[in-house]
């Protein structure tokens, strides 16, 4: 039995009792509920992301026991606790290298990294290019509310110019980073943008991302209703536009062209590419067996080591 008191608001015994929500191939959405209840502010965009993610997992019939969700620190990084999975709520900014380790440690897992714009594009941005170009088969969901939510409203790398925050009292003077553009240039092989208010569309993107064999990136525009004053759902609603039908996601230049227009925020798949996946390439060279190493696996060739060192 747990040491958490019966009344602990954190422990969700409701999951079992919740009304069934059939989805996927005979699954129930409730199977994907974690032991914790979300603690986000009422109306926070991240609820939509959680919802879309759970539906994606269910629809794709992903076994929670073979699922790892890895995050950093931030409101959005609380996600792993609310999904039934092997959840890893690590350190601020380190979701990607950790997720890579998890994947290499057990390549059979579905691995999802998630986190905020501060987590991923400020302290953690140094890991992004290297994760993307390596092209491991994992999905990175960047939950972009253009603000530091958890620490109560400081400037983030996606806060737009002129916006006033606690650390930019007279308005931000840096142009924001464009996560989708970065992902493409970094070598991500699947790059999309979704909006947390459009759960169904977002679910479709996340499903595509998970299905994609390689490093998939989904930027989710997800308003912070508490500290994102002036950039809530009202603000984003009219700005989010669907991807032009004729966009060829295989065309890198076209994708870069589309994304450089920052006035309208296109939602959809910007770019996808077929490129050999990293773990598979390592495995082709004998390595990266991870936890699945067993009796039939390669043994240390002691003789060749002895020859080498004598």
């Amino acid at each position, binding site marked *: 039995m747990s040491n958490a008191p019966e009344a602990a608001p954190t422990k969700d015994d409701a999951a079992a009792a919740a009304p069934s929500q059939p989805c996927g191939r005979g699954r129930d959405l409730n199977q994907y509920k974690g032991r914790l209840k979300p603690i986000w502010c009422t109306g926070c965009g991240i609820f939509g992301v959680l919802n879309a993610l759970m539906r994606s997992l269910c629809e794709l019939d992903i076994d929670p026991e073979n699922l790892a969700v890895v995050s950093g620190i931030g409101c959005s990084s609380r996600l792993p606790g609310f999904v039934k999975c092997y959840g*890893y709520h690590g350190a601020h900014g380190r979701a990607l290298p950790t997720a890579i380790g998890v994947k290499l440690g057990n390549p059979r897992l579905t691995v999802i990294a998630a986190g905020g714009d501060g987590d991923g594009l400020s302290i953690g941005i140094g890991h992004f290019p290297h994760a993307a170009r390596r092209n491991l088969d994992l999905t990175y969901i960047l939950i972009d509310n253009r603000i530091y939510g958890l620490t109560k409203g400081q400037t983030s790398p996606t806060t737009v110019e002129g916006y006033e925050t606690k650390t930019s009292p007279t308005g931000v003077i840096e142009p924001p980073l464009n996560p989708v553009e970065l992902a493409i240039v970094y070598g991500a092989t699947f790059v999309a943008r979704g909006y947390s208010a459009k759960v169904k569309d977002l679910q479709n993107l996340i499903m595509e991302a998970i299905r994609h064999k390689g490093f998939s990136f989904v930027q989710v525009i997800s308003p912070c209703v508490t500290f994102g004053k002036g950039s809530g759902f009202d603000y984003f609603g009219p700005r989010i536009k669907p991807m032009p039908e004729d966009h060829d996601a295989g065309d890198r230049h076209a994708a870069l062209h589309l994304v450089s227009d920052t006035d309208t925020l296109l939602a959809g798949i910007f770019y996808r590419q077929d490129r050999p996946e990293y773990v598979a390439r390592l495995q082709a060279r004998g390595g990266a067996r991870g*936890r699945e190493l067993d009796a039939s696996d390669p043994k240390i060739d002691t003789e060749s080591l002895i020859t080498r*060192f004598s």
Partner: protein
Amino acid sequence: MDVTDFVMGISGDAGEGVILTGDLITQVAARSNLHISSTQTFPAEIRGGQSYVQIRLGIDSIFNPGDRLDVLVAFNRLAYHRYKPTIASDGILIIDGDPETIDMASTFGDWRGGPIYVIPMGEIAAKDVGVKRAKNMVGLGAVTALLGFAPEHGEELVHRFFAKRGEALVEPNVAGYRAGREYVAKKVTKRDHLTIPKVSGEGYLVLSGNDAIALGALYAGCRFFSGYPITPASEIMQLLAEELPRVGGTMYQAEDEIASIAAAQGASYAGVRAMTATSGPGLSLMSELLGLSGIAEIPMVVVDVQRGGPSTGLPTKTEQSDLLSAMYGGHGEFPRVVMAPISIRDCFQVMRSAFEVAEIYQVPVIVLSEQGLGHRRATLPKALLKQTPIEKVTRPQRSWGPTYNRFEITESGISPRAMPGDPGGTHLITGLEHWDFGGPAHNLENRTEMVQKRFRKLRNLDRRYGGVFAFKGEDATQHLHATTDEEAGRLSAAAESFRGQIGVIGWGATAGVVREAVARAEKRGIDTAAIFPRMIFPHNDLTIRPFIQGHQKIIVVEENFTGQYARVLMHYYDFEPERLNKYDGLPFKPEEVLRKIEEVASHV
């Protein structure tokens, strides 16, 4: 001259191939069933400067590269001048030059050693071989011939080495080697008694401390390494880059040290024994995530091959200055273990203890090696690689019941650990304080209990991991060779009973030198003993207290300025140890330790 144990120095310009020559001599010796201990001095700068290798050879195990030189091989005149002060009184000089034209009296007027052999290495390379750069191979041939090594080992090794670099290089270098030997055979009449003893056997391995750590990890079941290059630790990573994929493992070069430890934590969480290796600057960068291993109970092994600090400091030199940082670095409080291998063999062995402790107790373990150990080479029996059991690397799936709580509060402090893929084991881990089931918790009582639970793991640490190496009198040699944790544990017990005049305490790589100093002191009638705890933190009070109480004077030997381990000991015991500190980047020599022992003994 004692031909069962002698020291050779090889010196030259950075471009002259000194390091390679030294490496090949050590390997020739190892194949000839001699033990060696060798050390290198890298040029300080990217280019230029002097390179130097010192090799001690003998028929018994050797634990340090010695001090006075019995043989100096100088590839040029400057090299000669730099190292001539370290020559023993009957030491031999082998030097490049033209024996026909050289004015011996004026050139070597300041030579204080014995016989001199002037060999025209450069000339033979340029004229006979036709490749100037083969000069070092001519030297190798000449030196091995002068010392009486059989020719075949050298030739084979030269062949093997250059074959890897490109076939075209093989012929001229082998030719150089042969030319060197021939010259000696034809032109030199030996004028001294230094000829290597003939010993039979199957030959030895030659390993550096870094090699030994990498191999030790491999044998201990490590199948994931992530790291970022840094002097003097990179060789661990480089060796594992080759060897890990051969056994299904992964070497992952991360973009920095933070990513390195993060990836290793991820892999460890996923169920693979995982490690990283770095030097001081990397350890500093990892300190935030060490705490994550502590609170989220993710097993982790971090090797720190220490170098001169702080900041970039003296990256190619040795120092023992990361101890307090390893013990206390990183914010907040969490259980951790710090171990320090005392020899190259122990580099191999400590890795098993490190991985076991990390996995059983679910804590981060920091292994403190240092440049002087990582870049030192020693001979070890082939049995080490042939007979050391190889850790099973499978982490089979387990099923967990419906009440599974990852951080269950237990008597031992150890909680049941499910790994991704295990049925019924899904859970959350977090760097936030948490309930037993993993959910973040800010409850006061839970916090208190959880902190206590985590620290209970250290209190309950199996004593056999806390072995102390003990050296006293004639026993020193065998004690250094404790090959298992059990044996080390027995040594601990022995050390508790030691009583005497001078007790020396040290940690890590200085053991080899201290052991020799202790033996020499003993010969001079000073009742001396030494102990080296392999696990420095948590502290082994049981062994160390009686040792300190049992000696009239304690000397703490450390390669640092502030006396870090002395400070730790002073926290536990009411005593003022004598301190022997050195922080110029070079390891101690046995002489230096001996001098301190004598000095202290004279005041007791």
